[in-house]
């Protein structure tokens, strides 16, 4: 019986191979080869393509540990990732709840479109629009001073909050979408059953709705945390001098300093750290999901 099952699944694999081949070829060419090249570069003293003599070294990885700056920046980036993820939950989850459980029909479609809109706009355009809103004499400053009787100065530009605002705006749709999908799947009769048993709305949220939407929260958090930790565009444009993070340093190595080997090494250290964090969190996340 078991042997039969094994041969059956093997022949299934064989017949599926022609179908899978294009996908594997694509993965190999588009991801695996460049990534392997980067791993290779990260152990070089010089970029082989530059024509200078090059040699094998662990120096790029050692550089990370020899300067506390890198560790400080990595720590700042992890904190940034955590903060942005939390804000995305705080903003995205209630929005997803309203979309999935409160709104119906056309109003749901309209709000949904508003949530998805950031996805459709170019990232740079999005960030520069925030720059216009947040800077002194910008839209927010002007609007508030027009309404308020006293004079205040709003200049959030080139600050940590500006970076957070820009990143949250870019990534909150992920949280809304993943949570919307899990909330949508919760049958309304479950909520009615809870209410008929005397549960308040808050009790329903805590004991039934949040536990059942955990998979969406976890998926959204992972989708947001990982790219935010390595982000460089929002920190650079909205953060200015305060916007130096681990991601901007990596970007510098590639586009400004042309020290690709160091940039590659720093990237792989980040990848390793993120993987370790996800692995440590996995049992907890799995239980929650």
């Amino acid at each position, binding site marked *: 019986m078991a042997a039969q099952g094994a041969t059956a699944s093997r022949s299934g694999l064989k017949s599926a191979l022609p179908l899978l081949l294009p996908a594997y070829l694509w993965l190999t060419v588009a991801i695996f080869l460049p990534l392997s090249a980067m791993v290779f570069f990260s152990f070089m003293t010089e970029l082989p393509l530059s024509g200078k003599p090059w040699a094998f070294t662990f120096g790029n990885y050692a550089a990370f540990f020899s300067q506390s700056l890198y560790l400080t920046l990595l720590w700042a980036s992890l904190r940034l990732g955590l903060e942005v993820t939390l804000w995305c939950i705080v903003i995205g989850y209630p929005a997803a709840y309203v979309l999935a459980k409160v709104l119906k029909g056309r109003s749901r479609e309209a709000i949904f479109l508003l949530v998805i809109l950031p996805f459709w706009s170019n990232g740079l355009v999005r960030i520069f629009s925030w720059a216009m809103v947040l800077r002194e004499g910008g839209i927010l400053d002007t609007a508030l001073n027009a309404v308020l009787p006293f004079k205040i100065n709003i200049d959030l530009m080139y600050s940590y909050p500006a970076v957070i605002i820009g990143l949250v705006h870019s990534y909150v749709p992920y949280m809304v979408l993943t949570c919307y999908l899990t909330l949508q799947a919760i049958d309304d*009769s479950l909520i009615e059953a809870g209410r008929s048993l005397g549960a308040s709305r808050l009790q329903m949220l805590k004991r039934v709705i949040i536990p059942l939407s955990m998979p969406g929260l976890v998926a959204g958090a992972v989708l947001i945390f990982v790219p935010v930790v390595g982000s460089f565009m929002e920190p650079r444009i909205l953060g200015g001098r305060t916007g130096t993070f681990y991601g901007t340093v990596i970007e510098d190595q590639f586009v400004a300093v042309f020290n690709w080997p160091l940039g590659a090494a720093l990237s792989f250290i980040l990848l390793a750290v993120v993987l370790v964090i996800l692995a440590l969190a996995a049992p907890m996340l799995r239980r929650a999901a």
Partner: protein
Amino acid sequence: MAGVQVSNVSRSFGAHKALDDVSIDFADGGFYALLGPSGSGKTTLLRQIAGFDFPDSGRIAIGGEGVERVPVEKRRIGMVFQNYALFPNMSVADNVAFGLSVRGEAKAVIASEVQRALDLVQLGKLGGRRPHQLSGGQRQRVALARAIVTKPRVLLLDEPLGALDKALRVDMQIELKRIQREIGITTIFVTHDQEEALTMSDRIGILRDGRLVQEGPPEEIYDRPKSEFAATFLGDANILRGDTTGTGIRLADGTAIAAEAGATLAAGAKASCAVRPERIRIAADAGSPDQANGNVLRGQVSKRIFAGNNSTYFVERDGQTLKVIVQNTGIDRLAEGQQVVLRWSPESTVLIAAS
């Protein structure tokens, strides 16, 4: 525990009147079936009583206390849903415990009450399972245990057995009835299955297009339907139409049909008579003269359906097909095409005003 009074309740969705001036008195401790075709407003009525939805007008009282503006959380009702609505993230025991624990009961009290409720529905050993590990019938029992463990004043069930197969459904009907007797809770049970309504309930309310058509004990509705709809929806009935003579009707061909029960009508008005298929005796037409009392019609057997212990005959007469059900106490059967005489007594005949 408490009775429920629904007085002149109306509820519209847009221009559609889902409930139209419905009044019913649900006696304390009774088992009540709400019966009606799909879309007749059964669920809407149950949701008004539960407090998920509020009536546009009218009053609802539970235990004499007006509740029409009290939300469901505060009504102390128990509700069983057609799709069970068990919390998939909790064990069976935690599902049953939910109502007690949101009320802040002590852990020890909760544990013993939950065990008692699970024992009552004969699932005492399955408290540790997850809902998805149970069969449909078991899930329904858990839903029932969860609804009654909080000692609600009223138990409301919306087609609770609709998703179960026939054999399991009959088991659950008996089980539900036993549990209801044991705890004596006022129970309102929505169904579109007339047999279920007849066998289980003390009283039946028949709904149609948001109106209460008739209400009373099963025997009364079966023996004395007040409308053609009630007569045909609850059980089977032959409907004969004609002009009323005061104590019956005269058919188009002049035959008089006598009725002892039903509406009192002015002579000459349009009316109909209803008679149940099993109340009619059928015999081969030997051309013998009719007896003085009793209703008699002659016709021809157009079809016979043999079902072992009984047979159903379809008899054509004057363009109408009448249905007759006969217990097969002997083996003398009538053949298709045979001329027959149908006889039944006036007391089995109900006079109904034309609708």
